[in-house]
């Protein structure tokens, strides 16, 4: 009944693309972190990719901090310090998640492809 024109195809294709893009942009899960950044007072920050499982041992002033990287996340496995603050941070799995070892003057932070925030307030 309707005599479709090629312009209809273009319009429907563009409209479909618009709908799909809007869904993708609005509902896509936030991308996970891609790498772990370890900073230690007095040294350059070190970057580790999160896609390969491994254990990192970092020598600090108070002892050794053991960091575990596994399936896109990282955690502080063992660290000097009586209160276990570093370990208590648990798995760091969202961009910006952070663990701190004050005795070893270490910070562990997982970061995504694009930093969402310039600074974290807490």
């Amino acid at each position, binding site marked *: 009944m309707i005599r479709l024109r090629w312009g209809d195809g273009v319009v429907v294709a563009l409209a479909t693309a618009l709908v799909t893009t809007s869904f993708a942009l609005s509902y896509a899960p936030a991308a996970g972190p891609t790498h772990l950044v370890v900073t230690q007072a007095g040294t350059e920050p070190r970057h580790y990719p999160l896609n390969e499982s491994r254990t990192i041992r970092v020598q600090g002033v108070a002892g050794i901090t053991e960091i575990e990287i596994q399936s896109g996340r990282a955690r502080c496995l063992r660290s000097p310090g009586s209160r276990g603050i570093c370990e208590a941070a648990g798995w760091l799995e969202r961009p910006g998640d952070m663990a701190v070892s004050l005795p070893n*003057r270490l910070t562990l932070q997982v970061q995504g492809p694009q930093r969402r925030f310039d600074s974290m307030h*807490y």
Partner: protein
Amino acid sequence: MTRSPLHPRLRAATGMLLLLLLALTGCDRTPETDRLTFQAFGTLVDITVYPGGVHDLTRIESKLSEDLEGMHSAWHAWEPGSLGRTNQLLATGGEFSAPPSVLPLIEYAQELEQKTNGLFNPALGRLIAAWGFHQDEAAGPPPDADRLDALLADPPRMSDIERRGVRLRGQHPDLQLDFGGMAKGFAVAHSLDLLTDLGVEHAIVNAGGDLMTRGRPGDRAWRIGVRDPLGKGVLASIELGSGEALFTSGDYERGYEWEGERIHHVIDPRSGRPSRGLVAATVLHGDAALADAAATTLMIAGPEDWPLYARRLGVARALVVLPDGSVELTPEMVPRVELRGEVIHRIRAAEPGVGANPP
């Protein structure tokens, strides 16, 4: 009338739709910033500078950390330093010249103590110490009822320091200064001044989560993530312009468990005990020291009175987190904060002309 050629029109139409798509996609790439993390001032300091790749970060770190450590030891509440000496001299009751590093804090604290009717009272160092907070690892036991009664019978106030120019005289034997509720504000502001001297025009200085901005990263605002005090995620995001400080006082910052109860470091001068009813109070203000002190004050003021004290201190933008995870904020704060979707929030404005009960 002749038809103009088809293709330009078609292109225009397609272009329009593409533009719409682009507008929706919102290509907002973060301009490059450099970041610097180190330990100083007894906490984790995190500096963000813009633009990236042009500043001598090693020099910035050494200068800033040296400066911050200097302030830390000068204002330390229980280790020897300028403040420690000042406390000793105040206790003697004799007149003395105030160390220049401590004097501005005393002056500001006197003003703030008056405005808050004593809710913000840095003269109560002894009370803080009694709760076990004047040591690196806060620990119990908490003071018993008799000790608390004795401490609260005739508590010292900032006005018990007689000030004539730079000459000070203590007029209360129990007076002991503890600037835990505002020193970080001074330190952060000072660090920004130092950064300016070092040629950094656009930066954030973040000391243990409390921060202040200067300049801007290109033509956008600074984006700050606010960590949820009751969880691991992000509670909200806040956009900051130049010269804005964001300070939070929370019951999770320092403290210990005692007989199943969480003892935290924000002590209410009215009860002599850790404040109750709020998990955290956040203040956005152009004066970092005021933001710091106000966050402490609102935390102490509690769920009923916080908007009132915010008004008294001239703080328009504030936000508090209640134990159930819901958020209350001032009307002026609303346009600055983007709360995570499911967070329940209420807007609270202080009624003008309503006075708080004096403590």
